[in-house]
């Protein structure tokens, strides 16, 4: 079923918020305000947005090393994430996690992960928690095509399948495992083709088309929520930027990148769709972008106004603070 126009516009808005957040974070990296490893999600926005549009606030998601988009799509606090990238005490992780560990437990975002394939077990475990409690939450486990070759992929998905857990395994196939094309590292490029070996449904979808993603997501999430078990889904997508800052990208053709940027941009595809159907006017489009721009500017202002964590913070949160917990 096609989402209502308002729902589509909400997806459009969220995709812009992700894109502008990352463009700004990238600028701030150049200024030196953002340090360390930093992986951009631009180009892949339709995946996080298409899935999270169907999740409740108390559902869980588990991310990857490239998770700013998952965080925003799940409703995470954007100014707190910017402050986290700045390493400030107002950061969502009090400046202790950085880009690869952003999490917002208040909305079920259980964390990005610096280990490729590190999220399969925890996501499956969160889904087991729901099953043991008998609640109807679902968990979405995002992972990249590189993670398909980890042993954890097999171990966790097999268990998700035999226990019929409410979890959806979503492969964001951006076609590159850091610098290596996926096809050089596996003969089976789509997780859809691996699903039958676990005895669960598999799907493959155009990850640039948020409507298509949304439809597949809706089906899989409903199935998981009603006791139908896991689904393994490939979203074919593309990383518009390099793996991380300083990536010269000599491993891929400029024409290929240009094609995806101009012809397969998920935001422009949805924009065209909405305009053609007269569901989005120019003024409203401009207003959506302006609002997102203001939100990002105020996130930067929030980050700048937040202090670096005091030295005492180095040793807190290693273990629970027994005094505070009692």
């Amino acid at each position, binding site marked *: 079923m096609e989402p209502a126009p308002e729902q589509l516009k909400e997806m459009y808005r969220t995709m812009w918020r992700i894109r502008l957040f990352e463009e700004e974070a990238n600028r701030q990296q150049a200024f030196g305000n953002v340090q360390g490893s930093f992986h951009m999600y631009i180009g892949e926005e339709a995946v996080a947005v298409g899935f999270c549009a169907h999740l409740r606030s108390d559902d*869980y998601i*588990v991310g990857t090393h490239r998770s700013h988009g998952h965080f925003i799509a799940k409703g995470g606090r954007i100014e707190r994430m910017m402050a986290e990238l700045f390493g400030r005490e107002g*950061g*969502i*992780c*009090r*400046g*202790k*996690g950085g880009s690869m*560990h952003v*999490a*917002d*437990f208040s909305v079920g975002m*259980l*964390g990005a*992960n*610096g*280990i490729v394939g*590190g999220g*399969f*077990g*925890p*996501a*499956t*475990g*969160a*889904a*087991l*928690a*729901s099953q*043991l*409690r008998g609640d109807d939450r679902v*968990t979405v486990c995002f992972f990249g095509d590189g993670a398909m070759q980890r*042993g*954890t992929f097999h*171990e*966790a998905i*097999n*268990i998700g399948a*035999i*226990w019929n857990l409410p979890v959806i395994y979503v492969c964001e196939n951006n076609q590159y495992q850091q610098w290596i094309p996926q096809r050089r590292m596996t003969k089976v490029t789509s997780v859809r083709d691996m699903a039958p070996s676990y005895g669960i449904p598999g799907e493959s979808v155009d990850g640039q088309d948020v409507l298509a993603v949304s439809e597949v997501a809706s089906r899989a999430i409903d199935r998981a929520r009603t006791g139908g078990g896991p689904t393994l889904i490939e979203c074919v997508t593309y990383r518009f930027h390099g793996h991380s800052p300083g990536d010269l990208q000599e491993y891929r053709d400029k024409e290929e990148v240009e094609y995806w940027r101009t012809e397969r941009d998920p935001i422009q595809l949805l924009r065209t769709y909405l305009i053609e159907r007269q569901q989005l006017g120019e003024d409203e489009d401009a207003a959506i972008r302006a609002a997102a721009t203001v939100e990002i500017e105020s996130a930067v202002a929030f980050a700048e106004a937040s202090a670096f964590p005091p030295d005492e913070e180095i040793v*807190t*949160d*290693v*273990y*629970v*603070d027994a005094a505070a*917990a009692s």
Partner: protein
Amino acid sequence: MRTMTFRDALNEAIHEEMARDDRVFLIGEDIATHGGNLAVTKGIPEAFPDRIRETPISEAAIVGIAVGAALAGMRPVAEVMYIDFVTIAMDEVVNQAAKMRYMTGGQASVPMVLRLPCGLARYSAAQHCQALESWFMHVPGLHVVVPSTPRDAKGLFPTAVREPDPVLFLEYKRIYSLEGEVPEAVEPIPLGAADIKREGEDVTVVAVGPMVSKALEAAVLLEDEGIDIEVVDPRSLSPLDVDTLVASARRTGRAIICAEDALMAGCTAEIACAVSERCFTDLAAPVKRLAALDVPVPYSPPLADKVVPSVEQVVQTVKDVMDEG
């Protein structure tokens, strides 16, 4: 007072914690069949059929799932059949469980117990008999607990389950059958509380896990020779109750540290250093260590039995430090 084995005391503790808190569940390989591989989970499937999950042979997933369930509010007790197999789940233990709270600025809590049967038993050679406590002592964010008696197993297990951070619960297989007194009700024993298993005046013997019984046997033999040793059991290696160990060493003026893990960078190294740093000038002799040989555990029984320190070696080492000052 009633006596029971270490295995039965632990089994009773598992029963009680599962009855107390319905968030507690067990996950691991072969844990519901035949009472578990080492018969520790006997009776649990009948008492709590919905809270015991037998898994495929997938150690990384067992621990990873436990981490996720803990993040989502449950209290998993995961078993890795032998500590040797935890190597397959090191990412889940070291990068995920241990660091979640810190990396998320305190948002995440991983209240997980990882039961790790370890050490020599039944001559199963190099991949089924290791003692790896020092690996985990080295990782901030983990607790490492090594009970040495049935009573301590009964008292430390509930603490481990109720702890908001991950606890590695090391069960030395050779002491599963050890008998000891266990009161009907045992108060939970806090982590980081060493226990003086025997008071003495001449030498402090810090003993970890199965070395506690050996040190107590050595104490009887040494008594005949007029040497009175104090046996101190740290009970948890992280946190480590340095104060109690140091106070004892200061009182006796001599200390030896005994454990069944390898000598090189083993837990004895950390304990010996912690004691020496704090009370070097109060000691009559240098701190000595007694640990496993730096070898993989061999299969052949006469060889395997010589890998870990014996009662006789404890006796000899005590005499050596007495001779030194």
